[in-house]
């Protein structure tokens, strides 16, 4: 098992590359989702403000 993880002494390079890739994919998804929620909330707030005038 530890031999598999060692990657012939290139372990730190290989695993950090794969880890960063996973991180970037997750960030892309979360960032996009968060922006969508923010935009929806902003539009809702604005419409309500306009309609309550």
């Amino acid at each position: 098992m530890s031999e598999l993880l060692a990657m012939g002494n290139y372990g730190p390079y290989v695993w950090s590359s794969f880890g960063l890739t996973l991180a970037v994919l997750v960030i892309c998804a979360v960032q996009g989702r968060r922006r969508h929620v923010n935009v929806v909330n902003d539009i809702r707030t604005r419409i309500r403000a306009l309609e309550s005038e």
Partner: protein
Amino acid sequence: MWNWFHKLASPPHFYRISAKMIPWFAFPGAILIVYGAVSGLFVAPADYQQGDAFRIIYVHVPAAYLSMMAYMIMALSAAIGLIWRIKLAHAVAAAAAPLGAWFTFLALITGSIWGRPMWGTWWEWGDPRLTSELIMLFLYFGYMALRAAIDETVKADKASAVLALVGAVNIPIIHFSVEWWSSLHQGPTLVRAGGPAIETAMLYPLLAMIFGFTLVFGALILGRVRTEVLFRERLKHWVRVIVIPEGAGA
């Protein structure tokens, strides 16, 4: 065909259809990435020259390919938006930029991590492949900064589209840099005369990763275009119906 295209390009229709499309990209994409990563890390044999370090190829190549693909989508959509004044096209261009920037960053950083054990350096200033890829990161940043600096969406669309198109010159430079100049970066492995120069046990995981990343990218960009569309159409009635559901009151 044209009828279908026009219907798809109509914002409310796109918003509805894209929600159904996203899972069809995301799930097969995720499955392919898991398969590609597992077999790339544990099943594919180590490279006879690069040992296990070559496995970085499985994340570096898809990231680098998508960094350029995103730019081409951005520039092409910007051109379509400029020429035919299709609003959805500008929304696609704006959505492609942050994703392109992330994948460019990923390509640079995984390349750097690969370069350290293989070339003995994290970074080589003046190397054509590395430098042109870095320039693309700055083009994405410039594009996003320009958009953020202009409040009026129509003006932001036009100005940023011009920037995207001018910067497109960099794409063939990145692609051919390893052939035109001497570079530390190795030459093409997959798309080359005489077919792929890679063993099948190494090739299949790579193809799975490239295809899987492309599908996930498709899901990500669709999601971002939806946000763009909603914002751009914020004064329209159909957006009101979505944002404030029936019975929620105003």
